[in-house]
């Protein structure tokens, strides 16, 4: 299945901004992070189609995944 993966802030370093990637069904966000060599502790905010989900959330075909390290502001 095809999933759009968007990376932000420091997660982009040596990786990419946005890519469409192929994953098999049953893949979780944590699996994607592992595939991209992103340590779990660097994942502070994980959105699927703009809605916050936990890292064990299973992604589906056509999802957009947005991954952020710890960030904040005001």
């Amino acid at each position, binding site marked *: 299945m095809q999933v759009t993966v968007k990376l932000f802030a420091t997660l982009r370093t040596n990786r990419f901004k946005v890519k469409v990637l192929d994953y098999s069904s049953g893949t979780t966000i944590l699996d994607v992070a592992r595939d991209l060599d992103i340590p779990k502790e660097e994942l502070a905010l994980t959105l699927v189609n703009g809605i916050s989900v936990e890292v064990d959330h299973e992604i589906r075909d056509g999802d957009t995944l947005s991954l952020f390290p710890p960030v*904040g502001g005001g």
Partner: protein
Amino acid sequence: MSSILGKVLRVNLSTGAIATEALSAELSKAYIGGRGLAGKMLADEIPAGIDALSEENKLFFVTGPLTGTAAPTGGRYMVVTKSPLNNVIASSNSGGFWGAELKFAGYDVVIVEGKAKEPVYIAIKDDEVEIRPADKLWGKKSNETTDMLLEEFGDPKARVLNIGPAGENLSRIACIINDRWRAAGRSGVGAVMGSKNLKAIVVRGSQKVEAADPDKFKAVVSDAIKKIKENGVTGQGLPAYGTAVLVNIINESGIFPTNNFQEGVFPLAEEISGEALAEKYLKKKDPCFRCPIACGRYCEVDGEGGGGPEYETLWAYGSDCGVSDLKAIIKANNVCNEIGVDTISAGATIAAAMELVQRGYIKPEEVTGPALTWGNAEAIVEWTKKMADTEGLGAKMAMGSARLTEAYGAPELSMAVKKLELPAYDPRGLAGHGLQYATANRGGCHVRGYMVSPEILGVPEKLDRFAIDGKAEWVKIFQDITAAIDSAGICLFTSFAIGAQEYADLLTAATGIAYSAEDVLAAGERCFNVERMFNLAEGYSIADDTLPKRLLEDPMPDGPTKGYVHPLKEMLPKYYEVRGWDAQGIPTEEKKKALGL
């Protein structure tokens, strides 16, 4: 010894009287300092119903017990006055170095009263305080004012606080600038300075601010700094990208107000993001006094440098105006700092003007400058410059979006609460944050209880952003702890990493007054209730605890928040109950007694 100096400087510009007086120890303890202390003093000193731009209004420049100390981010001060934008209590916070310097000069608070006959500035060098003529400075922008004053004062290490032409013209969105581009931004506090013919306050001090228990203070400061450095937000995210890092997060969540809150997703957000800023225009970090976070940015475009832009500014001039030209946003930001207007209100007012044009309220012949059309980069810079004008559409815009849209018979197009323009988060996708907008004492504000933190960032824990249950309790605690932080003289951003106990420990060691975590929260609650009572006395009621009609009635048209409106009506009764207020939003006698009011 105590980090509270116990000294108030009172300057009357009508009579020229300059006096010092003792700060009430009782009030210091109950209200901590800063926003809480000055709010209480202002409420006690000015009668309800006065004109905010008359000489009856007073301006409080107030530090907290941690200002000027080694506490992390201990450089904050507050400007507290009656707002000429909306007649509620104004409390605008700023960083930089001016607040700490005021403590070094020996004062916790400066109160400015009356009105000078001619333009003046106040010069403070420890015990030497003078009111000096400022006729040569009148009309000058921030950087030039600062340069001229530093030369005249004869000490390059002095700190300057000033207004620009907008404050002189009594723009209701005028800010007070210190250290060239730090701003006490909101509520039109710059116009109050302008109404008093006060151009600037220069300060230089030679004293140290000592803690009551130096050894203990050193230990709690180092513990707090360690926690700030180890925290992902304050130790990594904010230092690397500044507040601008939020652009993509908020946009991806579908709550990035676009074209004056007509949409919630800006397709070109990447171009105005913190990541783009860091890559293209960031020259260096620009930290405030004693700040281990250093979120401040210094950017350059076309050889011109300046502080910022912050996330809020990138939004107000960016997506809210449909603009994706980062260079133009940086330029508009610099113009705001130079002429002295609040970047949120200024950008949001241009967005409101663009919608007035879109809907045919503003006629083409009135637009005596670049077209006010969505996405016009030239317009955001040029119309900001025109906000320093005294006539024409620019001058109308300098009065803020509420007055502008009302003048065209379309007040519903002002995206403001209590006339204060909303910041960069659409509450249709943030139930708690929207409740906080509706109930913040100065009007539509994000830094009086930043519910974005739990609702989006997952700090201190992740909450369902659409859920209603439990949010009233969260908003109350966030508003109260924020009031306490604003009273302590340090930066709200520390709260990503430390909590009420750490603030209590810092305050206890610094002042010698024993504060528990509960005392800190109670002081914050006291402050919040004093402000509420100030506003009620000005005629505000529960009818004003609201949001723009669009956000309550028009479902978000697109993106991840599609279909939602803000459920305010369902949330307010619970909020009043949690606050210990009656159904009319008035603090009950029982609550007032419990808080010692």
